[in-house]
């Protein structure tokens, strides 16, 4: 039944505020015009006085002193009492004397209360219930009791207005359950509040802009009103005078106070400036301290900070301090620079120093300078190393020379030392550089090369990495004009390349000078001098055993450096160096092995060791094999194992060829040795074995054993047969094994070498065999004729034979002797030797028979008997040629009569039975040695 146009408030802005808040009320039917609006109640208080009707849907008003939440009611003539959907909450704002407020607040109560308590009014600016953190009261169900808090914070209080206020207490008391996030938000709120308070006026003006503008409007209006009323005249003047008087009076009253306040203010300002810029004033001292402590980063950061803050300050004091700072920084920079050029820094340190310097905007290019100095230092290191070692090598040589030509005492001293190398080994540990011990020390060159590679592997990577870092722009100075920086970089890039190449080249040449002097022959003399000329005395040659070690060192060094991704040239230099060294090492070792093998004949013991497989051999083939396999072992790492990126050592034709030739020579060398032994053995052993450094101990012991029975040097024939056996063994067992071994280790074209070696050994075999046969058959054959005709024997007139004559028996005995000799050395050769011997004897017999002019009947019988006996005895060793010879001989002898034949058979049987034991020698080889010896002794 309500009128249709009943006022309805649907919006208030704002929805809460203290009394006097300007409020915009929106809604429907809020009056047709100003006069239609007859009432406005906010929170029950009539506010019509302040209401300003704008439109039927909008009224602007000021709130009254209503407190708490209440309705906003509009009354109109046309619509009557209205309703509202929204309400307004009024509250009282308590304000301290230092707080700005845009509206009039009745302070009388609060101020009086404060005055009554005699407390400064500024102490309680906040209402009790207002939370300084602005955190809502969500979580405070479990409050801590005051007792608990007192226990926690003795002599403290949660009251903010007291001097012993403790924030901890307050937080525990009021925000016991607030989360950390909430507390943080609260802190931000508090900070905002504080800054608002400091900004004060602006905030107030901003938040109450409209009210202030209203005031201004009112003032302007008032002014206009006054102007219009034209009452400027006397009235205003007197007011002005009065005001001036009041002002001077007030000034007089407060001058002293104000002066003190000004002074206090200025002092405070100065103090705050000092604290605010404490950083700058402390900076020089802090820098000093940090530099001493080594916290360069802090120094640099501080300086950067100071620079950005004060570099163009106008304040005199700051400028003065800043200048001091700059002076110290300059010193610091110099110090860093010096330290940077100190070559003993690690890479990290250098990197750090460079980045420090860069960030300090040092002039020039510290990284580059560092690179240059580093390179110089490396070169110096290498050269020092070279000079040191050359020097000690020379002194050692001198000492050696002095010892050799020195007093006889030293010479005698040396001899026993060498004769028993055990002593040398014992003396090795001693530090004295006596001539005897010199040889066994690690050779100077080996130490040299180790030191060189150490220097390279330790320092070069750092240098290289530094260079890399430099060009990858790690130290790029940001202040550089980009294109300019780039240009200088490219030119430096090639420079660095050059520096690296120089360094690597120097290293390579140093090594070459020591190990491959011939490869440097092309260099100019002055250059050559620079790389160090090593004395070329034979003794200073590095022993073969050390070479692989050196090669290993160099190769590992090269591999290390290769891991650095070096640029092309330097890598090639290094790889060439490694390759040349490897080749050189291989050749040297092979040559040494050849020499060793050649000198093996000094070690012949003539002690024959029989074994079933290969017959009797001396130690020599085994020694030979040992030397070869040892060499191969030594070379294995050098030759066969290729590290990634290294060329195959046999990939180059000339090297391959030479290696093959050397291998062949190595194999053939032993043949030479054997031959020498067979024909011209060393008369007596030289006690000082020139190459004994190699297997000094073992070999020397063997030698010393031999020294005792040195006179027992076998006769030529014996030597021949022994060597023959050795040769045979070498040919059939040792050589294939060695070839196998070589092939296994990757040597190429070994078949050729094997073939050549086999030919050599076959030749030697042949030669030895021929000589032996000659040696053996000559005496037998020579003795035959005289023996045959001993006692004036004549084939024509001889009596009826009584048996086989002794010449044949003697003959057979000598053959048995040969058999025994051969058998004792090597049963294998028995057939071969006996065949030849038999053949020779048969030929001789045949020749003798041929020479006979006429046979008597008895003579014929005798001849036939002897021939038959011989033929049957030697049947095992007969061959076509012997058979032919026998036939030939039989033809020359007249046929026998029947009795003759019978008699021949009888005599033959008698011969065979009587010589049974002896004849057994000519039976199958199965005859065991024992029987053979028995036969031998029975003779």
């Amino acid at each position, binding site marked *: *039944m*309500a009128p249709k146009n*009943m006022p309805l408030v*649907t*919006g*208030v*802005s*704002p*929805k*809460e*505020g203290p009394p006097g808040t300007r409020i915009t009320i*929106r809604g429907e039917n809020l009056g047709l015009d100003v006069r239609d609006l007859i009432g406005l109640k906010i929170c029950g208080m009539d506010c019509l006085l302040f209401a300003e009707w704008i439109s039927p*849907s909008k009224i602007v008003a000021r709130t009254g002193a209503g407190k708490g939440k209440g309705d906003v009611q509009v009354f109109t003539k046309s619509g009557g*009492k209205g*309703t509202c*959907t*929204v*309400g307004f909450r009024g509250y009282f704002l308590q304000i301290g004397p230092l707080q700005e407020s845009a509206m009039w607040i009745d302070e009388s109560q609060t101020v009086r209360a404060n005055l009554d308590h005699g407390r400064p009014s500024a102490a309680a600016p906040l209402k009790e219930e207002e939370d300084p*953190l*602005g*955190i*809502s009261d969500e979580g405070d*169900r479990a409050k801590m009791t005051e007792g608990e808090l007192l226990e926690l914070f003795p002599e403290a209080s949660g009251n903010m207005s007291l001097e012993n206020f403790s924030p901890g207490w307050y937080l525990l008391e009021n925000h016991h359950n607030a989360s950390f*996030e909430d507390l943080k*938000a*609260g802190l*931000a*709120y508090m900070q*905002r509040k504080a800054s*608002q308070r400091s900004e004060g006026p602006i*905030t107030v003006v*901003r*938040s109450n*802009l*409209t009210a202030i503008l209203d005031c201004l409007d009112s003032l302007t209006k008032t002014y206009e009103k006054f102007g219009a009323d034209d009452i400027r005249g006397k009235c205003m003047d007197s007011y002005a005078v009065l005001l001036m008087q009041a002002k001077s009076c007030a000034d007089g009253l407060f001058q002293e106070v104000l002066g003190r306040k000004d002074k206090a203010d200025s002092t405070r300002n100065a103090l705050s400036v000092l604290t605010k810029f404490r950083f700058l004033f402390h900076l020089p001292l802090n820098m000093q301290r940090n530099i001493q402590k080594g916290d360069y980063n802090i120094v640099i950061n501080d300086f950067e900070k100071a620079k950005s803050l004060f570099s163009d300050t106008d304040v005199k004091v700051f400028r003065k301090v800043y200048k001091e700072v700059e002076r110290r920084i300059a010193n610091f920079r110099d110090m860093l620079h010096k330290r940077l050029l100190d070559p003993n820094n690690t890479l990290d340190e250098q990197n750090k120093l460079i980045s420090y310097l860069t960030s300090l905007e040092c002039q020039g290019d510290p990284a580059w300078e560092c690179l240059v100095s580093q390179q110089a230092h490396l070169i110096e290191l290498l050269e020092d190393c070279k000079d040191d070692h050359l020097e000690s090598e020379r002194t050692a040589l001198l000492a050696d020379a002095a010892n050799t030509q020195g007093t006889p005492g030293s010479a005698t001293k040396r001899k026993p030392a060498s004769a028993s190398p055990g002593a040398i080994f014992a003396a090795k540990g001693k530090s004295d550089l006596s001539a005897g011990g010199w040889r066994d020390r690690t050779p100077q060159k080996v130490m040299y090369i180790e030191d060189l590679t150490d220097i390279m592997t330790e320092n070069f990577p750092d240098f290289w990495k530094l260079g890399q870092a430099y060009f990858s722009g790690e130290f790029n100075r940001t202040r550089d004009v980009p294109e300019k920086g780039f240009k200088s970089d490219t030119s430096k890039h090639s420079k660095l390349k050059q520096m690296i190449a120089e360094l690597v080249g120097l290293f390579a040449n140093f090594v070459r000078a020591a190990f491959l002097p011939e490869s440097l022959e092309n260099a100019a003399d002055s250059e050559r001098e620079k790389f160090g000329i090593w004395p070329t005395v034979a003794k200073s040659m590095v022993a073969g055993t050390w070479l692989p070690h050196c090669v290993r060192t160099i190769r590992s060094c090269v591999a290390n450096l290769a891991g650095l991704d070096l640029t092309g040239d330097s890598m090639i230099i290094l790889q060439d160096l490694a390759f040349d060294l490897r080749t050189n090492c291989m050749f040297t070792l092979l040559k040494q092995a050849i020499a060793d093998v050649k000198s093996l004949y000094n070690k012949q013991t003539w002690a024959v060791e029989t074994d079933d497989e290969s017959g009797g051999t001396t130690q020599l083939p085994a020694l030979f094999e040992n030397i070869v396999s040892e060499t191969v072992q030594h070379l294995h790492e050098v030759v066969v194992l290729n590290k990634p990126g290294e060329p195959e050592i046999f990939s180059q034709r000339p090297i391959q060829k030479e290696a093959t030739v050397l291998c062949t020579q190595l194999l053939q060398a032993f043949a030479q040795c054997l031959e020498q032994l067979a024909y011209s053995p060393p008369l007596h052993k030289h006690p000082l074995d020139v190459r004994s450094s190699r297997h000094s101990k073992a070999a020397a012991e063997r030698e010393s054993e031999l020294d005792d029975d040195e006179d027992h040097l076998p006769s030529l024939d014996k030597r021949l047969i022994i060597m023959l056996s050795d040769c045979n063994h070498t040919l059939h067992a040792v050589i294939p094994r060695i070839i196998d071994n070589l092939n296994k280790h990757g040597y190429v074209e070994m078949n050729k070498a094997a073939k050549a070696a086999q030919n050599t050994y076959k030749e030697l075999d042949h030669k030895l065999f021929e000589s032996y046969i000659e040696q053996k058959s000559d005496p037998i054959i020579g003795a035959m004729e005289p023996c045959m005709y001993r006692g004036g024997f004549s084939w024509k007139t001889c009596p009826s034979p009584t048996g086989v004559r002794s010449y044949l028996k003697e003959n057979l005995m000598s053959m048995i002797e040969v058999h025994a000799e051969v058998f004792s050395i090597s049963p294998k050769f028995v057939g071969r030797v006996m065949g030849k011997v038999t053949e020779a004897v048969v030929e001789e017999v045949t020749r003798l028979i041929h020479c006979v002019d006429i046979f008597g009947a008895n003579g014929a019988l005798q001849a036939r008997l002897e021939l038959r006996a011989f033929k049957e005895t030697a049947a095992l060793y007969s061959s076509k040629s012997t058979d032919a010879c026998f036939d030939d001989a039989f033809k020359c002898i007249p046929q026998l009569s029947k009795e003759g034949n019978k008699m021949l058979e009888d005599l033959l049987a008698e011969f065979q039975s009587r010589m049974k034991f002896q004849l057994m020698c000519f039976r199958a080889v199965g005859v065991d040695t024992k029987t053979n010896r028995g036969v031998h002794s029975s003779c």
Partner: protein
Amino acid sequence: MSKAKTQQPAVIHKVIMVGSGGVGKSALTLQFMYEEFVEDYEPTKADSYRKKVVLDGEEVQIDILDTAGQEDYAAIRDNYFRTGEGFLCVFSIKEQESFQATQEFREQILRVKNDENIPFLLVGNMIDLKDQRQVTYEEALKRAQEWRVPYVETSAKTCVNVDKVFYDLMREIRSRKMEAIRQNNGKQKKREKKRKCTIL
């Protein structure tokens, strides 16, 4: 009078406008409430509006709390947010900072409401000033998708999408309430008890 009161629909959807200062929260609200566009700018502290609307044939009340965007009032927001059932998070497409600030508002709301699925609309206002645009549609949409909320561009001045955002939000609130009723039918007792405890 009593009649007028009974006429008021029982269902009230409480909407809260959030966003940085000066992005047009009040403008959107006033446009929605009174079809009025306010040219001059006066910072809001906290305004309250409520009116009857017909939502999909059903009469409901919408209660709009227009909050202060200024940082000065950030701390009191918590209390306001707690009463809200749905949020219109407004930024100005011609002001990147206001867009960035939506992140903080979102976080604050999620923290206070402790509910990932609170009805929420991301509103890019002032599309009538497209030529001054700083926030692209795509990046705003991307953020909305991250939050899994709708994104709408509006203009309070030319009245584009103004009603839409309020109605969309109310629908969301309504469906949330239905869901909650369905879910909490059994638990209601418990919850009430719990709430009492909280008050204590």
